[in-house]
């Protein structure tokens, strides 16, 4: 593009103003990228939950544990390959701000159901051998610097031990990882053994929490969930069965109608950045009227000058926008590592598409009037101003 040096030099004609505008654009798109990624998450767009897994919870609430006796009936449903159960443990590791989820599970069932997570045979053996043994996701272990054999004390907010104490102690026997790159979405979790947990806890014996069904075929999701809920209809243990994705979304949506708030913030950010860059572009053209007239004198057509100003506007918006988006990727990486309990957020294709459209839209909005002013300016009048 032979006009690029001209564009580039023009852009930096007023360095301070361009830097200020780029800074504003960067900040705006940083916010935009982050918020839109969250928006995509709350809409389910970026959740990496494609495993053929259904979650069976008590119809009243997922905090109400279902009894273990449902297990054989669930296993008998055609299309169900394996069943695991998960009781939320609610433990605190040293300090409440160290939040991460722990669940009491049956090791064998866990391993058969969560095929997306990989635990070595050796570590699996160790887990099944010792009753206080637990396994942690690789991310979680990295977060606290845990090694195999470490002792992990947890104070359960829900379950006291038989003696009334809430201080449980576990031993790390295994660290599980992705079975294939990015497959294991449970890396932030810790799993304790249900048999030990059920025996040691003061109350609640015989309940298993929620059930997790692995299907032999993802297309069966709707049929199986209907059948399961039908099985327990009008029983004391009515169930609600949904895909893991819906289950997670319902959980996240409890945080409030964030999407509406995000939409409003995004609009506000847009409006202010529109004013800032609009002002920059109109000043940039106003102060260059004689120069633009000279370009026309040389033989640049009206359309050519129009295109030049629009290209300048686009360059400004893309430069600032891209910097902001790249920064937002970094920010999201950091946020995902924080113990928020929210699944990892990342800017997916739709967010980038939205950002790209925003940059182009913004460039057109702020560039179109100055561009037409440049197009329509008369050489004679512009040069006579001196």
């Amino acid at each position, binding site marked *: 593009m032979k*006009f690029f*040096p*001209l564009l580039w030099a023009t852009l930096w004609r007023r360095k301070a103003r361009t830097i200020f505008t780029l800074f504003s654009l960067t900040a705006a798109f940083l916010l935009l990228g982050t918020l839109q990624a969250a928006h995509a998450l709350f809409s389910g767009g970026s959740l990496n939950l494609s495993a053929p897994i259904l979650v069976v919870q008590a119809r009243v609430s997922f905090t109400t544990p279902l009894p273990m006796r449902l297990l054989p009936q669930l296993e008998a449903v055609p299309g169900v390959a394996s069943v695991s159960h998960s009781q939320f443990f609610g433990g605190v590791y040293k300090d409440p701000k160290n939040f991460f989820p722990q669940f009491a599970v049956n090791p064998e069932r866990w391993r058969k159901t969560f095929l997306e997570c990989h635990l070595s045979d050796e570590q699996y053996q160790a887990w099944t051998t010792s009753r206080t043994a637990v396994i942690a996701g690789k991310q979680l272990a990295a977060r606290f610097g845990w090694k195999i054999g470490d002792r992990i004390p947890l104070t359960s907010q829900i379950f006291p031990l038989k003696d009334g104490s809430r201080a449980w102690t576990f031993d790390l026997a295994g660290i599980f990882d992705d079975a294939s790159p990015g497959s294991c979405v449970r890396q932030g979790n810790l799993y304790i053994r249900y048999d030990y947990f059920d025996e040691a806890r003061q109350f609640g014996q015989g309940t298993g929490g929620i059930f997790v069904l692995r299907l032999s075929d993802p297309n069966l999701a709707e049929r199986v969930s209907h059948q399961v809920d039908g099985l327990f209809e009008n029983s004391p243990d009515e169930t609600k069965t949904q895909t893991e994705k819906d289950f997670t979304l319902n959980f996240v949506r409890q945080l409030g109608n964030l999407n509406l708030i995000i939409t409003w913030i995004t609009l506000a950010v847009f409006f202010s950045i529109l004013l800032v860059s609009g002002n920059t572009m109109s000043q940039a053209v106003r102060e260059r009227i004689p120069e633009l007239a*000279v370009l026309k*004198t*040389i*033989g*640049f057509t*009206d359309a050519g000058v129009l295109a030049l100003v629009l290209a300048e506007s686009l360059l400004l918006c893309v430069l600032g926008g891209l910097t902001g988006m790249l920064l937002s990727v970094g920010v999201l990486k950091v946020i995902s590592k924080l113990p928020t309990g929210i699944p990892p957020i990342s800017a997916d294709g739709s967010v980038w598409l939205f950002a790209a459209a925003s940059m182009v839209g913004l460039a057109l909005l702020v560039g179109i009037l100055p561009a037409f002013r440049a197009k329509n300016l008369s050489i004679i009048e512009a040069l006579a101003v001196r």
Partner: protein
Amino acid sequence: MSAIVSLSNVVKSYTRGKQTVEVLHHLSIEIAQGDFVALMGPSGSGKTTLLNLIGGLDRPSSGEVKVAGERIDQLSSGQLAKWRARHVGFVFQFYNLMPMLSAERNVELPLLLTSLSSAQRKKNVQAALTVVGLAERAKHKPAELSGGQAQRVAIARALVADPTLLVCDEPTGDLDRSTADEILHLLQVLNKDHGKTIVMVTHDPKAAEYASHQLHLDKGQLVEGDVKAAA
């Protein structure tokens, strides 16, 4: 010698509000190929207006303007822009260089409208800067050049696309005597050695001496009898 510029019965009037002022009154002028014409006259006599018509920056209210074989009064503004790119180089009193571009980038501007390769453009820019004697200042910004040097860059820019016609509006109006003489000498060289047809507006009788012919304009009409014979 054939006429490269030929105006016949040209009228130019400006309308400001309700008032219409006729600035050029039925002018007919012929300028031969290879000529160096100085256009003189008092302030407000219509010199710039006439030059703008010859250079295709403006169109007459009536009459014919034929330059390089083309009736440019009949071209649309888009066609006129393309015509200017091919046929005319402009030099102004205040140089009108792009302040943020280096000398060579300024000179390159007209070539961006051609299909020349980047290497070809570089070569032509270098050649034009050499003609005006500023090859070693190629990387300098206009603010780093003296008035005379800036005007040389402007002349290089006017030359670089090898136009049919060079049009200069008071090119030495902002320069001291000796710098002005250098610039005028350069124009003379361009006319004599490179065969460029030049039309130059000037207030300065000394500057006009460098030209082969002088045209005198007063109140929008040519004044006869004061024209220096062809050199």
